């Protein structure tokens, strides 16, 4: 039994399980923790697939920064508030699950038809593609083929920053002024 098989069969269940488990957590903190677990497993997959750089990024950026940010906000909004799992919208859950499985199946069949379960990846990935190390090779591609998108991401980040500035640093008075200006959302009336 080759190693990658073992790795896959060990981590795949964990990955999926943690994802599912996340759905059933009444407490947001727990959900976040399960998500982190899931991210770790994905990182492992990256490693198996020969994306060592992304493995690192996944752990540092995702599991690290992003999830911490999440947890921070959760704290901000109050750790102990437990979400009621009673569904107010009729049929929402069943439909959600049905459709969820539906999309899963559709993707599954697409993969089966498009890729098939026989195809093995080219063996010499690390030697040929990742020659000189994954990071270097990656940067090659990134700065040759995708340098413009890379530049564009900068704009994206600025926008994000500005967005946060706007949303977070909104002065109270603006809020209050907008308050008394605010109108009732809609008043029904008869029109011809």
């Amino acid at each position, binding site marked *: 039994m080759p190693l990658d098989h073992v790795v896959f069969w060990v981590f795949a269940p964990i990955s999926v399980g943690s994802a599912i488990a996340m759905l059933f957590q009444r407490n947001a903190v727990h*959900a976040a923790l399960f998500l982190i677990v899931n991210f770790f497993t994905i990182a492992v997959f990256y490693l198996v697939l020969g994306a060592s750089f992304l493995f690192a990024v996944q752990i540092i950026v995702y599991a690290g920064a992003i999830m911490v940010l999440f947890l921070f906000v959760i704290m901000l*909004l109050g750790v102990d508030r437990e979400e009621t799992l009673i569904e107010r919208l009729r049929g929402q859950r069943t439909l959600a699950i049905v459709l969820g499985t539906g*999309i899963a199946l559709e993707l599954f069949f697409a993969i089966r038809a498009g890729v098939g379960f026989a195809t093995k990846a080219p063996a010499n990935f690390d030697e040929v*593609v990742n020659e000189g190390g994954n990071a270097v090779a990656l940067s090659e591609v990134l700065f040759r083929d995708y340098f413009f998108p890379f530049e564009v991401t900068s704009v994206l980040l600025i926008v994000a920053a500005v967005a946060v500035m706007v949303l977070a640093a909104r002065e109270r008075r603006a809020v209050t002024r907008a308050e008394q200006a605010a109108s009732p959302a809609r008043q029904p009336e008869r029109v011809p």
Partner: protein
Amino acid sequence: MRTPISYFLVVSAMLFAIGTVGVLVRKNALVVFMSIELQLNAVNLAFVSFSRMHGNLNGQVLAFFSMVVAAAEVVVGLAIIVTVYRRRRSASVDDVSVLRG
């Protein structure tokens, strides 16, 4: 490695589906948002798997981009959620429904 690529793809598909379900069933905006993050990660996994399949690194680059996007989205998203929370004292997506019809 001998694990067929499609295994990973299937996993990513499952994660994606789970993410969608999460968006649909969870009321806490934060958890909903986490589910979306889960979807994005599923996509990333798909990217990486495909890149392995095609034997070029574009896929990994794309995954990298999507991480950037995810990060940016997280920042904005959390900010919005916080704003809503400030106004409503609740992070439940069901509580915000002034607009309807």
